[in-house]
């Protein structure tokens, strides 16, 4: 583009955009309540209250990582997918494009929003795990898990952006839910995969949520499958490819 793409105006504008995008969603109960409350609620139910007494501390560790992944999927899928679809529908995207909005603002502001929500969801689960589930980790592992989740939201942002780039505002929530809930189940986020039929277990490496869950488990020394490099490479390629197609589609003329 041109030299104005990331000048001082663009930088301060991006910071404001991110803050307002976060506020906007925080004040939207249909987004904020499920995104912030459900992961902790389900974790406390299945990871702490209903865990078998003998294995409870182990379960609390394991499921804390996988429920973090379940949690960070939401700001990516809903914060991007549903928002972009309805903003396209209602003409807000066209207005933003017509105004001199710096080109990185739209996606950049939403990315920052999603990462902030991811960190908050991680912090809530970490508190629940440490205070109620007996989770004990060295500080370095807490930090690693937090970083995995903060950046782990990105593949779901790309996927949400793709949904938002073709679905209309009415259909997007349904489409996102059809991706969100089955993927969480089939990636072993709610309970370990070995409780599912073998066919579903062998399918797991298709899902980005499964790879992110393995990274989360690795970061806190819980049993996991695959290699660090394999998971990182899968997630990077997934994010890049899906994000590229989504951006291409969004740039198309309406």
């Amino acid at each position, binding site marked *: 583009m*041109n030299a104005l793409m990331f000048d001082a105006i663009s930088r301060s504008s991006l910071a404001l955009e991110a803050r307002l995008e976060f506020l906007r969603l925080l004040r939207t109960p249909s987004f904020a309540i499920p995104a912030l409350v459900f992961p902790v609620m389900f974790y406390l139910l299945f990871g702490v209250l209903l865990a078998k007494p003998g294995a409870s501390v182990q379960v609390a560790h394991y499921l804390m990582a996988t429920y973090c992944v379940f949690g960070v999927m939401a700001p990516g899928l809903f914060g991007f997918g549903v928002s972009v679809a309805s903003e396209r529908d209602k003409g807000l995207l066209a*207005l933003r494009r017509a105004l*001199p909005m710096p080109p990185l603002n739209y996606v950049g502001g939403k990315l920052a929003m999603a990462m902030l929500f991811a960190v908050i969801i991680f912090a809530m689960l970490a508190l629940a795990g440490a205070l109620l589930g007996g989770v004990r980790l060295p500080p370095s592992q807490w930090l690693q898990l937090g970083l995995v989740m903060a950046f782990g939201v990105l593949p779901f942002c790309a996927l949400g952006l793709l949904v938002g780039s073709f679905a209309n505002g009415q259909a997007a929530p349904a489409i996102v839910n059809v991706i969100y809930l089955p993927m969480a189940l089939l990636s072993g986020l709610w309970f370990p995969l070995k409780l599912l039929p073998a066919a579903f277990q062998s399918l797991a490496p298709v899902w980005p949520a499964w790879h992110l869950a393995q990274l989360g488990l690795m970061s806190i020394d819980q049993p996991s499958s695959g290699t660090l490099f394999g998971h990182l490479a899968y997630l990077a390629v997934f994010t890049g490819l899906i994000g590229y197609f989504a951006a291409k589609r969004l740039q198309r*003329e309406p």
Partner: protein
Amino acid sequence: MTAETVAQLCAASKRRGAVLALDGVDLAIARGEVYALLGPNGAGKTTAISLLLGLLRPDSGEVRLFGLPPEHLAARRRIGVMLQSAGLPDTLRVGELIAQVRSYYPQPRSLADVAALAGIETLLNVRYARLSGGQQRRVQFALAVCGRPDLLFLDEPTVGMDTESRVQFWKTIRELVTGGCAVVLTTHYLEEAEALAHRVGVLAQGRLLAEGSLDTIRARVSQRQIRCISTLTAEQVQAWPLVHSVQREGDWLRIVTPQPEPVLRELFAADAQVRDLEVQRAGLAEALQTIAREAA
């Protein structure tokens, strides 16, 4: 292109699906002028605006905004935009929405100035969803002017406003124009074009059929209209020379003619009881209909 031209379409054509939405249109907007783009739905107004804003690219021809391609940020930092449907975020407050758009511009108006200009001083802490339709329109106007634009795009700006707000809105636009701001206006309210526009462009089926000052456009229609209550039949009147068309509407007779004086003489001679007589020059609405009919 002169230094005073702020926005320009040069032989711009654009196909939307099977329809040639814009067919070789040339138009130029000068600094400080109000240019009203008129025409029926589907005439190409939205396509023309979308090209000027860089939302669409022309299939052929050229688009310039302040001498630059319209997608250039330096050009767009000099425009303000009010689109027909804005769909602003419901959960943000008015002050937050203004702050967001102010942040796009190098030297924006202060928040207080913007609020005063749009008449929304008391609404800054209110969430957008809680505003009435007319208040939302004023907020959208505030967003359009907050960057001190040299060129303002107003797409059906007063839809949903009551008469008083509309008159107040026109007054504000005139003040901005006095300050050197150019305006591209599309509207369905012809009195809005008559109240604001220096120049009018008439689009139909993707072509610019007529362009010029309001008087020039009105003069394209030489017809006058005579209305009166008379017992004469339409067939009798139709037989007179210089009568273009006659219609009876209840007691009323409506006669259209290019030259009213001889027709009036005939009328008085034929019907001594004629009353409630009116002779009108064609307004902008009749002018537009005539221009569209001639082109079809």
